[in-house]
């Protein structure tokens, strides 16, 4: 078992099709008790047993942190992804027992902020569902700006609008509505914190624009789970465990280690938390770094790799594991 990832046995109590791409899943404890408390922005890692394959995917909790009877997550179907979302959509049914991790928050609100400016793109809305519920319950000052493709695909746009009225601003791509980012950033009172969750390009745009407008790094929060990218298969020697393993095309290095019975620490499985950081003993080839954890210098040094999302191409790779 990995550090900080104590498991919970849960039962799926409901599966709701939200729109053509998104399904919502409700989990309650199989033993009937309350679930652990969490804060807005937290995620759980859902274990999926798909035949002989096992998948561990992180999903943001979107239910209110004030309710620990059940947890809910929303999953957007990705037909060209590695299969986790398809498994959730096609195989997970009401009544099924599953295993999820304790909640972990790598995208928490800074409650010292005078105001919270929340920016979501697409399915990146999910952590904000929980954060807005938390803030609204505590009388927090927030404003949500949400871009989605079309009204039909605007997941929870209607719910949010009903709950929070003018505090929610929605922009639809199909009618060319644009998030007025520059104006928003220029007009926030001192002490505002900015949160962004959405596609990688949107996160980059928001972070760069905020930096150019003089927003200190400490006030800009973002969450980007990079799903592990597929790539060429490669072989790895694990020096401490004295094992030789192969990483498949669709598998991450972390998953390959787990399949070989090694249990490296992890929290996010998306290249952001830093838990699975692994030292490189020697290598002959090229790293394909996909994480947001290591610095540019560390990426170039050839001394570290984040096995949850990063890959390798070349003759040999020896890791300290």
């Amino acid at each position: 078992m990995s550090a900080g990832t104590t498991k919970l046995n849960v039962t799926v109590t409901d599966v709701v099709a939200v729109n053509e791409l998104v399904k919502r899943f409700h989990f309650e404890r199989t033993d009937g008790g309350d679930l652990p408390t969490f804060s807005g922005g937290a995620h759980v890692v859902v274990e999926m047993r798909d035949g002989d394959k096992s998948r561990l995917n992180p999903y943001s909790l979107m239910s209110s942190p004030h309710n620990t009877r059940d947890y809910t997550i929303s999953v957007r179907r990705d037909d060209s992804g590695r299969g986790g979302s398809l498994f959730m959509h096609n195989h997970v049914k009401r009544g099924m027992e599953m295993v999820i991790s304790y909640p972990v928050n790598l995208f928490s609100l800074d409650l010292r902020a005078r105001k919270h400016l929340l920016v979501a793109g697409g399915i990146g809305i999910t952590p904000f569902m929980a954060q807005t519920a938390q803030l609204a319950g505590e009388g927090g000052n927030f404003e949500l700006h949400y871009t989605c493709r079309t009204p039909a695909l605007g997941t929870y746009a209607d719910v949010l609008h009903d709950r929070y009225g003018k505090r929610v601003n929605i922009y639809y791509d199909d009618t060319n509505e644009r998030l007025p980012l520059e104006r928003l950033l220029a007009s926030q009172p001192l002490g505002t914190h900015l949160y962004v969750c959405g596609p990688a390009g949107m996160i980059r745009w928001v972070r760069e624009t905020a930096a150019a407008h003089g927003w200190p790094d400490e006030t800009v929060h973002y969450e980007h789970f990079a799903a592990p990218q597929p790539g060429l298969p490669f072989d790895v020697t694990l020096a401490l465990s004295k094992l030789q393993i192969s990483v498949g095309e669709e598998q991450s290095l972390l998953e390959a280690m787990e399949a070989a019975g090694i249990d490296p620490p992890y929290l996010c499985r998306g290249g952001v938390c830093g838990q699975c950081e692994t030292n490189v003993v020697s290598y002959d080839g090229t790293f394909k770094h996909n994480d947001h954890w290591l610095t540019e210098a560390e990426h170039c040094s050839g001394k570290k790799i984040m096995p949850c999302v990063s890959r390798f191409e070349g003759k040999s790779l020896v890791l300290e594991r």
Partner: protein
Amino acid sequence: MPAKTILSRPVYGTLSPQTGKNHLFIADAEGAAAILDLAKKAPDGFFASAHIMFIPEMAGNQFQTALRTLKPAQFYEGPSVAAALPRLRQTLANAHMGLRLYLTGSEGLIGQAMQVALEAGIDHSSIQTEHRGSWARRVQCVHCKGITENVTTQPATCAHCGLLLLVRDHYSRRLAAFQGVCINAEDPSEIPQKEEIFR
């Protein structure tokens, strides 16, 4: 620069121009020289969106002309830190994100201006600081909670309750003061020699 003795003891840097929409400088006495040094590294037009609040204290009139030559959008000269703080509070209450804050001069000035900035919701790590001039300390007596300004000796006498205090490096950002603890609680007749060490 003092050695980092314990975690809370503030460590100051060197001012450098930040990316921002507006720039607010607060300086006392020799802190003015840090602003003038920053100006040498600043891009053209930087001070057109700057506001300088200057408290000359013992420096008299030696910096005002040079500071005004930077052509800041606003220049304020105040008689004391205490008089400048309400003005700072008001300025921050009306400010927007994109304002960058630069504090320079004595520890007391940096600490008190930072205290006001923290109350306005600015994270301490996004504030630029540079120490210049006096190392005199603001000290809170942990017994009576009174604050004594401009403490230069070790030990120091609490201006409120009269206890003889060991001035610690333990610093409170919330109070903008170092902590002073009675040095002779066991035997009040024991009176250690005062030495002037915070100059």
